[in-house]
């Protein structure tokens, strides 16, 4: 059914960046995610929406390996992710931002970004890691992008909520993932910050796919290429924002009120 609604899905899995098929996970019999399938193209921005408890965050958890699937498969560039460790998934090119800003309070902004720099990820590598010009330049570049250029020496603890969200996005960017997963990136932001974030997202999606969970419909309309609607652990609808908005099922459970 899914293949039918996806234009251009003819050449098998390899053309998708991410192929989620028949994904199911159950917690003590409760199926939080139930037979979910969807496909993400390279350079696509896909937004997942759905009411609370629909299983959106769980889907991200499953993709990045935080939760193990009961059944089904997740293929990323042809590699099965369900068997890989979290760090291997990251190293394969999947980055994940959490719902609440997840940064290291005790470290400076610079150090936060440095830790995410994709080098020296083994124990030995981390011991031998040198803060050379390449690292510094890259951190400055990213800091500029996430509006934190003059905050590099501050302890992350003292940033504002919006700045923390940006910092976490920056920490993902420095990893340079091909698939970026964002869980409610604008939640709790002021209008101005929200606008800046949208700008930031537009800027960073070049050359990568993004999977976003978001409630803010205006923001979704603003960025989404395609939208997947989850309801009670299942895919309710999928397609362009226009199409989804008019889907009566979706209207009934989600948008209508």
């Amino acid at each position, binding site marked *: 059914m899914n293949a039918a609604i996806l234009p251009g899905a003819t050449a098998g899995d390899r053309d998708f960046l991410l192929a989620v098929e028949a994904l199911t996970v159950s917690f003590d019999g409760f199926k939080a995610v139930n037979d979910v399938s969807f496909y993400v193209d390279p350079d696509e921005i896909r937004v997942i929406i759905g009411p609370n408890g629909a299983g959106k965050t769980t889907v991200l958890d499953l993709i990045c390996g935080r939760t193990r699937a009961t059944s089904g498969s997740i293929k990323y560039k042809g590699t099965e992710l369900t068997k890989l460790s979290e760090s291997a998934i990251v190293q394969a090119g999947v980055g994940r931002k959490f719902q609440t800003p997840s940064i290291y309070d005790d470290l400076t902004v610079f150090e936060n970004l440095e830790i995410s720099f994709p080098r020296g*990820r083994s124990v030995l590598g981390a011991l031998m890691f040198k803060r050379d010009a390449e690292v510094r330049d890259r951190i400055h570049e990213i800091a500029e992008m996430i509006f934190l250029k003059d905050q590099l020496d501050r302890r992350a603890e003292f940033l504002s909520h919006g700045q923390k969200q940006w910092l976490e996005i920056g920490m993902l960017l420095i990893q340079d993932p091909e698939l970026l997963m964002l869980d409610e990136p604008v939640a709790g932001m002021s209008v101005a910050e929200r606008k800046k974030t949208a700008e930031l997202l537009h800027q960073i999606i070049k050359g990568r796919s993004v999977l976003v969970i978001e409630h803010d419909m205006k923001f979704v309309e603003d960025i989404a290429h395609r939208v997947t609607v989850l309801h009670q652990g299942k895919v309710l609808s999928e397609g362009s924002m226009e199409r989804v908005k008019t889907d009566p099922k979706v209207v009934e459970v989600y948008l209508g009120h």
Partner: protein
Amino acid sequence: MKLPTLNDNPFMKPVEWMALALLCGLIFCVLPLALDGFRLNLVGKYLTYAFVALGLVICWGYCGILSLGQGVFFGLGGYCMAMYLKLEASSVENTKIQSTPGIPDFMDWNQITALPWFWAPFKSLPLTLIAVVLVPTLFAFVIGAAMFKRRVGGTYFAIITQAIAAILTILIVGQQGYTGGINGITDLRTLHGWDIRTDAAKTILYFVNGGLLVACVLVAQYVKRSKLGRILVAMRDKEDRVRFSGYGVASFKIFAFCLAAAFAAIGGAMFTLQVGFMSPSFVGIVPSIEMVIYAAVGGRLSLFGAIYGTLLVNWAKTTFSESFPELWLFGLGALFIAVVLAFPNGLAGVWRQHVEPRLTRRPKAASPAALPQGAPAE
């Protein structure tokens, strides 16, 4: 004056260099000049516990893993050294009254007629020195790998390491034919022919011990200021974030735990050399927890603090137990509670909050433009 600047990540900040110089001065000049041989040997004994405290700073302070079984590693290191020394002391001549000469006396008492296989490597000094570090580290690796790969941490880890300490004690006590039982391995005499019981030898060992401690401080400092050190802090804070930045969190924890074990093992070996015996009473739960308090008193985040904390607690223990033995336990108990409730960062925290600002106020008075340090920028 801007600290820390992002463009340089020096091996040590000036303050830390000063602390190191002070520590070296204390260990290598002040104490040897001020104390008689007996007291100096005591300080040497205390400093062997400082190795454990140092390891705990990395493992508990930085990485957030509280091990209540550091005595296990201290003991294993000490036992490895003691086995070598015991074999040397059990030459055929020295033990000719035994029914099997040439094996340690306690084996003879337990009707063991040949050296057990796992004692054999300890005939060689180089192998012993390797074993001193390797055996405890490998043991730590096995425990760490089993626990951290399964994401066991926090209180569970503490309880399980505590149980391991208890098991090992019962095992050593129970297998007295192979381990010397509750008496431990005693009556150690020479290290490669060099009599370790003389006063001169004790002084030399004190300096060797001090040197090794400083070396371990430098290693710990290297780890702390490396990216690995920052990853440890990051993990303590947001473990998932580190994991989803592509790090194998378990390996880093295992590393920290193994490093702490290796430090403790070196301390244990030096303890055996300076005190002249090793017994299961250092392996158990009580010494293991006491060692945690050394680090806590010094400051769980401060390498130098841990050493001063160890010295202070042990000095207090000796002094108190000479004059008011019963008050000591009340004092030690109160110390545990005070350190947790009132001074979670120990001596180092007090220093940073109350002493350092005063020290830095003077230059500030000279140049009013200088910014107060450590104040949050908000």
